[in-house]
């Protein structure tokens, strides 16, 4: 029996939702029939609108999908203006102020506190500037991700950007693929560093050579959610770039036909991969969904993957100043937990125009990149005051921090996330010395098991939980260690469970002290020394964790209270907004009308 959501989707779904959305917007929040709220909010997701959590009724999160994270010249200003004008809620956030943009782990943009009544104006402004919210949420082709510097990177074998752009053009708005059993996340990578994070997507194209020709190997079935993380598995298929969209069409049609529409918890293609295995996946794709002979896999470049691979001299992210093949430079800026105030966003848009081509790109680590800066302008750009807050050379604890949306807006959350991660990063920076040679240290914090902050692929994974302290329930985290990507990706091992949120920084401090004291070092023979001339080679954090069994990991470090103070220990999910002075659910102004005035409640 199809699920309830499937029944709603079979009535109205895809592009046609828009006319209804526009009618409701014109008439106002109250125009949505009360007994149709759930059905419409489920459908609105397809147009990038996600109803915010309890206590925030009538307000929406709006997601704008920017394929491969590419924000074209002029577009960032539009995004900043929309955030400033429309993304302001009833109460400010104490860290980020009244209006802000979130750069997400899938190279998209999230705005919050959007009112239905403003949607037509926002859509018009977005779309007249080549931006869209279409399919940013909901059961269909999501934003396509990839190496954020595709086309601008010296490590590139194939420029994956035109391929990603093609897929975006072809599958956004194509009715044949508009209604899938669940979300469909696609990654296209052309560089040899693995920055596309293909391993954690439903469908991944990764650079590979076949008979001397460059193209992609195809992997299927990655994803992190629900304590069922999977890496995508190779299906022994290679495609030349010009056929990538045929294979993508075939794979998403296969998912459309065979994905589970009865149980949404079992719907992602990773579960079909569990059931079928890669051989059957390939066979069904070949027999039923493509009309040409699929070549077998080519020779991949995974042994060169350095991105988030846990190496001491690896490529942890895209922060910093890097030369492009055309002699210009791209400058990756660290945005702590991916959130940037609207005024800062507008300032960044101006700087990108002034020093670069106006293009800005988003990374899968919630950071931004200004591209196309000529060498002669680099120093002046690097001197800009905005770069003090969004640094190209940040402290490793600032640089490595990722956090999801959490209890500020999200229904599924167990804990507060972004503001807390900001406080963690600052405290760690001020109080913890990183062991010698550690320049990259990734701490990913997710408010629940959906894993939007991709905690399982970090050095330290934090996942929202609860515990009791002196009998009182408090917010807490499960702590995992040693996850990452690279040639042999590895999910974090969950080591400490239910650590009270105010004891997490103390745990990390003790953990790093243990690593520094116990890591192995080996003297590198002179003739084997690398370019850096380093005379000792140290065990990386990831190796250090991998070398230890469960008991040893448990004994590594203890959680403890420190000078760190956490203002969000109470059940923030039970408030209407965690940072309001009057935070009780009953104090919520929601739902409100188009001007933000509270509407009479129905009960």
């Amino acid at each position: 029996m199809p699920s309830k959501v499937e029944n709603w989707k079979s009535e109205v779904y895809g592009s046609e939702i828009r006319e209804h959305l526009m009618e409701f917007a014109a008439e106002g929040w109250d125009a949505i029939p009360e007994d149709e709220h759930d059905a419409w909010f489920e459908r609105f997701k397809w147009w990038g609108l996600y109803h915010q959590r309890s206590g925030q009724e009538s307000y929406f999160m709006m997601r704008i999908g920017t394929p491969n994270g590419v924000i074209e010249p002029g577009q960032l200003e539009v995004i900043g203006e929309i955030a400033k004008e429309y993304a302001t809620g009833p109460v400010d956030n104490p860290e980020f102020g009244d209006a802000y943009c979130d750069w997400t782990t899938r190279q998209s943009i999230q705005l919050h506190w959007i009112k239905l009544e403003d949607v037509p104006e926002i859509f018009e402004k977005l779309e007249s500037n080549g931006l869209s919210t279409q399919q940013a949420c909901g059961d269909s082709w999501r934003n396509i991700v990839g190496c954020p510097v595709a086309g601008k990177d010296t490590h590139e074998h194939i420029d994956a950007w035109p391929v990603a752009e093609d897929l975006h053009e072809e599958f956004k708005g194509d009715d044949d693929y508009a209604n899938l059993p669940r979300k469909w996340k696609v990654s296209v990578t052309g560089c040899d560093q693995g920055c596309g994070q293909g391993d954690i997507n439903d469908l991944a194209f990764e650079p590979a050579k076949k008979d001397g020709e460059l193209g992609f190997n195809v992997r299927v079935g990655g994803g992190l959610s629900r304590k069922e993380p999977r890496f995508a598995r190779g299906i022994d298929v290679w495609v030349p770039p010009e056929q990538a969209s045929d294979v993508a069409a075939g794979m998403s049609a296969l998912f459309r036909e065979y994905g589970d529409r009865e149980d949404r918890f079992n719907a992602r293609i990773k579960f079909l991969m569990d059931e079928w295995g890669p051989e059957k996946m390939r066979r069904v794709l070949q027999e039923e969904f493509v009309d040409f002979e699929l070549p077998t896999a080519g020779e991949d470049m995974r042994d060169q993957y350095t991105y988030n691979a846990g190496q001491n001299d690896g490529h942890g992210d895209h922060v910093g100043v890097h030369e492009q093949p055309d002699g210009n430079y791209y400058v990756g800026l660290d945005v702590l937990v991916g959130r940037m105030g609207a005024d800062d966003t507008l300032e960044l848009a101006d700087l990108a125009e002034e020093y670069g081509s106006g293009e800005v790109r988003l990374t899968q680590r919630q950071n931004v990149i200004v591209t196309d800066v000529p060498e002669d302008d680099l120093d002046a750009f690097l001197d800009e005051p905005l770069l003090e807050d969004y640094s190209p050379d940040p402290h490793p604890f600032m640089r490595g921090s990722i956090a999801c949306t959490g209890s500020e807006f999200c229904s599924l959350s167990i804990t507060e996330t972004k503001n807390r991660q900001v406080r963690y990063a600052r405290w760690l920076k001020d109080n913890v010395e990183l062991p010698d040679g550690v320049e990259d240290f990734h701490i990913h914090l997710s408010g629940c098991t959906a894993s939007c902050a991709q905690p399982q692929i970090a050095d330290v994974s934090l996942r929202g939980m609860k515990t009791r302290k002196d009998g009182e329930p408090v917010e807490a985290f499960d702590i995992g260690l040693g996850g990452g990507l690279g040639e042999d990706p590895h999910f974090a091992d969950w080591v400490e469970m239910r650590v009270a949120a105010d004891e997490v920084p103390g745990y990390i401090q003790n953990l790093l002290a243990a690593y520094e004291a116990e890591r192995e070092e080996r003297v590198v023979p002179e003739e084997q020394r690398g370019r850096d001339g380093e005379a000792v080679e140290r065990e990386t954090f990831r190796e250090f964790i991998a070398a230890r069994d469960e008991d040893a990991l448990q004994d590594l470090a203890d959680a403890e209270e420190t000078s760190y103070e956490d203002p969000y220990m109470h059940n923030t999910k039970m408030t209407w907004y965690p940072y309001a002075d009057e935070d009780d659910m009953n104090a919520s102004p929601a739902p409100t009308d188009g001007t933000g005035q509270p509407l009479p409640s129905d009960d």
Partner: protein
Amino acid sequence: MTTDVHQLDDGAWISVNDSREINVSDLWLLARHEFCDCEMADFLAEGVVEVGVDYPDIAARFAGRCIQCGTEGVTDWLTVGRVIDPDDGQFYGVVPESVHVPRKRTRLARPE
């Protein structure tokens, strides 16, 4: 009017007649249960797995963890509230922190 109950947003909350009523992230005290070995389970609800109506009770099974002993899994059926008068559809929720006794079976919400 029939009472319309479902879980939404990937099990984030329970809707009763298109009104958000029960959320994840609450702690439920479970007695006479088979969820774990604790006398009284201190159960954190992380996701709604299934919902049902056993008039006048609204019931649900949750995925989550006992934060006392660490056992993870899915509960038997918990009564989360009642709709006493199906005509007005008004939902009266239980208090999660008080003591609940899970049951083995309930009527399923589907088909309506």
